[in-house]
């Protein structure tokens, strides 16, 4: 019985190889015939949370990516690029097998993501081994660009631009007297808090919480007791929403400031509108709702009238970098990597000129940081935070 099964399986495998090979040959001959025309049926991966605590952040990025690919496929109906989704749930523990899956699928020639810093630490080395180029629209931990991963590119500024800008906003715009800082001990949250502390100098107090923590009574007691008028939270929206809800419940009157990990509509649905009102959220990106060209109207038309969320526009632009490469005949991972490294053009939605340094960081002159504010239950742009 078992032998029979093995024989059937190997039969299937062989026929898959034969047909797969035939298909590949066909695609190859096509590209040869057309000279510079693109290779077909290649895949671009999106790597990030589509379910789970932080799905709200990932879905907008996936939508931006999807929009770019759908538009490309409409123009190149005879030679499409497919979107492959890798739902990491934002969890570094789930990142390794997903990254392996993407790495071993030779049709995947580029990755938009990984969305978060923690999962990047796990997934990027795997991509690096197979020279699979990535551009992350949102993983902002500074050290990611110092690991020597040749495939790494960051389409936004990192926390060394976001953190100090948040610090400057607290110090110069809000003119806060006492600032309390809390982080969630994640790669991203702790890094951001470090940068904020450098600008602010002496803080009223600091504490750490845990991802998935739900009862914040001890840290709430400390913050209220410290008399802080501003809380900077380094972490993601679920914990931020719960912490703020419990703080306001304990009678705290101050303002929370947090980074791009909280900059999402889900923050308001966890905290509730009244609680979230007035919260300041930073982002090393321009408002996606004010993106250039037809991006906002196209996005709304494609996704049931949803407003584009944080990084949707960045994801759209960096996906287009890959698509442009594929269109110009860069069909292998190595060719596409070289194409991204040499890229130097402005994105259609963000207006940012995508030009990467040797480390994969975005050219610092192109990095801008915005402050957003929760107003009447919506995250609305406040000001672009001035450079120091």
């Amino acid at each position, binding site marked *: 019985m078992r032998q029979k099964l093995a024989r059937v399986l190997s039969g299937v495998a062989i026929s898959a190889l034969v047909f797969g090979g035939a298909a590949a040959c066909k695609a190859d001959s096509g590209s040869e015939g057309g000279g510079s025309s693109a290779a077909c049926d290649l895949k671009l991966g999106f790597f990030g949370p589509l379910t789970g605590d932080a799905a709200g952040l990932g879905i907008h990025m996936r939508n931006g990516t999807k929009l770019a690919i759908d538009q490309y496929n409409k123009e190149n109906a005879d030679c499409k690029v497919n979107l492959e989704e890798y739902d990491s749930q934002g969890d570094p523990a789930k990142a390794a097998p997903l990254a392996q899956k993407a790495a071993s699928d030779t049709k995947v020639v580029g990755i938009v993501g990984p969305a978060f810093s923690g999962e990047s630490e796990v997934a990027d080395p795997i991509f690096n081994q197979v020279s699979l180029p990535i551009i992350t629209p949102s993983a902002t931990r500074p050290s990611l660009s110092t690991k020597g991963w040749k495939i790494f590119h960051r389409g936004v500024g990192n926390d060394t631009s976001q953190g100090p800008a948040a610090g400057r906003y607290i110090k110069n715009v809000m003119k806060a007297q006492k600032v309390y800082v809390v982080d969630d001990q994640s790669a991203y949250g702790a890094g951001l808090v470090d940068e904020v502390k450098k600008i602010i100098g002496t803080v009223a107090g600091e504490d750490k919480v845990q991802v998935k923590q*739900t009862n914040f*009574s*001890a840290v709430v*007691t*400390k913050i209220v007791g410290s008399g802080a008028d501003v809380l900077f939270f380094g972490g993601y929206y679920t914990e931020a929403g719960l912490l703020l809800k419990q703080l306001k419940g*304990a009678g705290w009157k101050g303002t929370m400031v947090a980074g791009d990990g909280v900059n999402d509509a889900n923050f308001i*649905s966890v905290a*509730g509108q009244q609680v979230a009102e007035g919260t300041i959220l930073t982002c090393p990106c321009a408002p996606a709702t004010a993106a250039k060209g037809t991006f906002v109207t196209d996005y709304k038309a494609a996704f049931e009238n949803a407003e584009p969320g944080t990084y949707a526009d960045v994801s759209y632009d960096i996906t287009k970098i890959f698509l442009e490469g594929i269109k110009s005949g860069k069909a292998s991972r190595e060719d596409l990597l070289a194409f991204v490294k040499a890229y130097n053009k402005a994105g259609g939605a963000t207006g940012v000129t995508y030009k990467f340094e040797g480390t994969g960081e975005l050219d610092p002159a192109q990095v801008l940081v915005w402050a957003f504010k929760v107003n009447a239950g919506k995250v609305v742009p406040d000001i672009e935070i001035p450079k120091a």
Partner: protein
Amino acid sequence: MNFDELVGNFPALTITGLEQGAIYALVALGYTLVYGVLRLINFAHSEVFMVGTFTALWTWEALGYNQNSPSPAFGPLLLALLAGLAVAAIASAATAVTVELVAYRPLRRRNAPPLAFLITAIGASFVLAESFGIGTARAPFGMPTLIKSETVFTVFGAGVTNVQLLILGVTLVMMVGLDQFVNRSRLGRGIRAVAQDADTAALMGVNKNRVILLVFVLGGIMAGVAALLWNVRYGYTKFNIGFLIGLKAFAAAVLGGIGNLRGALLGGLLLGVAENYAAGLFGGDWKDFTGFVLLVVLLMFRPTGLLGESLGRARA
């Protein structure tokens, strides 16, 4: 170490610790009751709590509240609380009974070894949590602030809020009620009899399976009450909310002496307070660490917990 933080906020840390501990205690009762009768650690109990938080939330949504609703007046508030309580208690009890009927009873009938029960319990827990995870897209859910938290009086400079009084009050009432039920009523005598010696109790005419079912119902109701209090206080749920609370509640039950109802209360309150002190002294990142170190150290000196394992022997 930050002694100023601990000493300065000592009263406030104590109060919020007691409030969290009360919820641990109510959930711990479910572990203790089942363990007392079956010598089984019902790991699916954390999911019984989770089901309670979701069903109470859905009840409120059906009554027209969402996370942005303002706090209602007293009349509608009472209705919302009681309706949420009833639905959560019934749903949690039904979940507990379902787990017993589907997962444990067939194993008992076949005289399965204890290890089979343990792995079945863990499996049941995963099935419940994951089915809610898939059903709710693993999203977090915010809830309306039904009771606006207001300081009623202050103790040593720390405000005690109406919500905290409600939580502690309800927990004490449920505890005393359950304790009296088990120790004084006819059905309670049945529970104690089966806990002491199931075979002899059966010879005396106690229907063992009915007693076991009753134990699951009682534990489920307590978890449902805990879920409602949780919703009122923390206003948030998610498919995996039960995991950490279940683990803490189980630790609380062991701390007080598993199988012992009063031990569950003591263990729950102690764990809640100790965690808060630790968070004050060492910082929030040491909170869980300290809770479990406390448990391990205590078990070294009192292996059966603070009050001993004695559902059956307490007042037999």
